[in-house]
């Protein structure tokens, strides 16, 4: 069991690293594209679509890790005034609701992924790309979100233990 947990953690953190690498790659690609245009060279046609796909992968690969590090923004303006027991019950209800919601999304995204693979449909952007590539990271992301919420539900950690001043946003 501990080996499985270790493997899962490697995947979780590995996906977050990949998210960082992909967004850095996107910046490099765009800089290269602008540079080529300014110097009069013909820019590569694949940059636009690749960056658009990277934005999706960047988000999906990092989302479960963000749950692990309590990086998803939430509002505690109401719950902070509740007694600890009520707070705990509400937290469990929240985790359960999120598990159900993620399960529904995961299930629907698997259907979409399978359909996309079977149909062989193409996404027409600046170049053609099989549409299933769009859906690959999504069921995985939501499946891992289910696991992360389950960790909170069974009490391995508490999602609400971050101080407000430690939260990040734009």
């Amino acid at each position, binding site marked *: 069991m501990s080996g499985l947990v270790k493997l899962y953690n490697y995947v979780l953190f590995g996906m977050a690293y990949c998210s960082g690498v992909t967004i850095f790659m996107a910046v490099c690609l765009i800089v290269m594209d*602008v540079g080529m245009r300014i110097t009069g060279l013909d820019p590569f046609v694949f940059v636009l679509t690749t960056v658009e796909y990277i934005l999706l992968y*960047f988000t999906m690969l990092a989302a479960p890790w*963000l749950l692990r590090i309590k990086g998803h*923004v939430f509002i505690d*303006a109401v719950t902070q005034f509740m007694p600890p027991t009520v707070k705990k019950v*509400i937290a469990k209800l929240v985790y359960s*609701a999120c598990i159900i919601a993620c399960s529904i999304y995961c299930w629907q995204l698997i259907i979409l992924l399978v359909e996309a693979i079977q149909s062989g449909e193409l996404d027409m952007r600046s170049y053609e790309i099989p549409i299933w590539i*769009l*859906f690959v990271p999504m069921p995985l992301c939501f499946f891992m979100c289910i696991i992360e919420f389950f960790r909170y539900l069974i009490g391995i950690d508490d*999602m609400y233990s971050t101080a407000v001043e430690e939260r990040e946003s734009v």
Partner: protein
Amino acid sequence: MEWYWALATLIGMVVFLMAMGVPVAFTFIITNIIGVVIFIGTMAGWTQIADNSTQLITRFTLGPVPIFIMMGSLFFHTGLAIRVFDGLDVLFGKLPGRLCFLTVAGGSVFSTLTGSSMANTAMLGSLMVPEMQKRGYNWRMSMGPILGTGGLAMIIPPSALGVLLASVANIDVGRLLVAGFLPGFVLAGLYAVMIFIQLKLSPESAPAYEVEMPSIPERIRLVCVNILPMGLVVFMVVGFIILGWATPTEAAASGALGVVILAALFRCLTFKAMVTAIEATVKVGAMVFFIIMSSTVFSQLLAYSGASAGLLEWAASFELSKYAILGMMFVILIALGMFMDATSMMLITVPIFFPLAELLGFDLIWFGLFVLMTFEMAGTTPPFGLLLYVMLGVAPKGTTLYQVAAAAFPFLVCDAVLILMMIKWPNLALWLPSLM
């Protein structure tokens, strides 16, 4: 279902779930799932919402968001921000309240190089508060200017929130970014005037102190070396967009490259700084994108249920002036901002407010800037204004939320004055975009 019940159901569900502490992104996901069952009446719609959720975040126009975060983070973590402060520091003699004026000047320059108001506030707070305490500044003068100036990053380009707003509201990203440039600096001027007035009323709140000033040639050298090169980065972002040389996404990437080049030239570009910047980008960028992804269907549900159209028709039936409705929208945004962060507020209100503003005849770029200004104000309103908590995190032990909010209040008045100026002289916001 009548439009008002549909609106109350959807907005009520989002507000209730958020109030219960459901993470914002998952609030929208749950609302979408329940909303589809209520309004479409079949679970088959779930496949559609999962399919539609990729629509917004696979747009090239959203590209500047993570890149601006990376650029700002690089600027802070490589030490370039400190150099800017060192350069500005020699421009202010021993005038009373010099650290307050330095905060406004430094914060305005930071805002042209970073897209995050939270990062800006945190940086200014950690740099300036200890120094101000040491020099005997009272809490009002040591925190107020930082809170005011920190929020400037929301309107002065590059603004990550501006890009998000433009993308969600479907308006021109570049024009909205550029529109914030002039009003941002006018606001910085208003902050300086406010500090001057506060010092006149209470000179002991920020006492003058002896400063060892370098010679004039040395001062010129410091300014040329530490500040002027930053102008290159500003040009690579704002200039490229105005001149039409690059799209906002390309300008953002060029700006990030500019910061990397400057850091390399100043020999402060380290592997650690790069990794920290990328980590910050993943933390903030992916979190915001996940919210955007999950909220895409929410605005579609508002339209599908008839809530948006019904509300518009209802609002148009009143014989109220458009400025009265603008005032109502302002009050709603400020009230929401007392409990929510800017991204959540934006995703709830944009699908309703922007069509309404268009119907009332407001220029949408102008209105976008008005909304950003309101977000800036909402960020410093208690009890949930996130910038207040950022400030509290870097303030000396024992500082209360009340003190932080009270220190911010005069600067909120400046924000309100700027909004009135924008209403009186819309070209303040629209002149620069008109050049594009």
